[in-house]
């Protein structure tokens, strides 16, 4: 993936995660102590986003930093061990609802890491 493709993917993931968090660009700017245009530019892929900003955005959106960076998949696999128990029930969902659920689960941050590895 080229640098510009990587930046575009990251920009679209930031926007996607913001909308899934029910926040406006203005609200995110306020929570990040940034000016609103900075958030607009991040989502347009026109502004470099620092590692610290990715960490803060991930915290605010409650998603994993790797999702925002475009390093983890957009959808959880139906046979992912994390949802193994519910796999049979999930098959009852309409295909569109199932896709949306697997997408939501792919975004989430998992705190199952040794202490100290996580941000905050």
């Amino acid at each position: 993936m080229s640098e510009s493709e990587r930046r575009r993917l990251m920009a679209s993931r930031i926007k996607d995660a913001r909308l899934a968090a029910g926040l406006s660009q203005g609200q995110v700017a306020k929570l990040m102590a940034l000016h609103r245009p900075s958030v607009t530019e991040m989502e347009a892929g026109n502004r470099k986003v620092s590692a610290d900003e990715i960490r803060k955005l991930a915290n605010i959106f409650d998603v994993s930093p790797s999702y925002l960076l475009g390093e983890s998949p957009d959808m959880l696999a139906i046979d992912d061990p994390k949802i193994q128990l519910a796999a049979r029930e999930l098959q009852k969902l309409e295909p569109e609802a199932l896709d949306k659920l697997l997408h939501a689960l792919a975004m989430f941050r998992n705190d199952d890491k040794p202490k100290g590895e996580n941000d905050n």
Partner: protein
Amino acid sequence: MVAGRRSIILNAAQAASDAREQASLDLVDPIDVYALASALNTRVRFVDIDMEGFYFKGSPARVLLSAHRPLPRRAFTCAHELGHHWFGHGTTMDELQTDDRSDSENPNEILANGFASFLLMPTIGIRRAFNARGWDISKAGPLQMLTVASEFGVGYETLLTHLSMMLKDLPPNRRAELEKTKPKKIRKNLLGENDLTGLTILDSHQQAKTIELEIGRGVVLPKGTLLDGNSLTAAGTFPTFDLYRATKRGLTTAKNAAWTVELRIAPTKFIGPAQYRYLEDPDE
């Protein structure tokens, strides 16, 4: 099976009391179920998915609630998913339901349902709510039922089910009769023609400290209630109460001689983590 069901429900009622105690809540008053979820280390998020709810057993545990369901329904489903969490059940998905799942035969579902019912509508609190107003549960009318449902943040039919199936304070034939009057009809009888998406009725006896609203929903407040905030718009004056419509995301404090309540106004069918539902938007 009947005896088994009853013992599961008793177990659920005890667990609901334990959960309230763990979060330092009393066993009487209405609660903010989303704050309780947070106190129990679960993260709640409203999602644009056609289902009822989803409990994800993980670290952290997560509850996903469909934003498409009515506002009081979301609170009940949140409590139901917290039941799965409390009892250590695995990741589970709850499909769309037309009623309160009271006919489910799955012990885990009966348990989670009983937990939700008693968590949101504790026996002492519900009986107090009727007694304080001088109302007999077995004879209360639709408007009275909707008033108590509003106080506890649950749906009209959810309260009827609880009074009838769990507390046994409402005879089945009376429940069936009350169920014929839908909340929309009660609203129309009280206010006349209106285009509100739902109605919360707060009278001078209510004990809730926080009330969930969303844009498009109406709230009835006693005469003389003062408002601090700009999320509500006056929508009508009646002989014994004033009607407001929720019009803007944010917080409004309502205060009168009897109580002070924080009214939390979310966007219609809000999508996002529960803690942002009433966060004011500088872009508006």
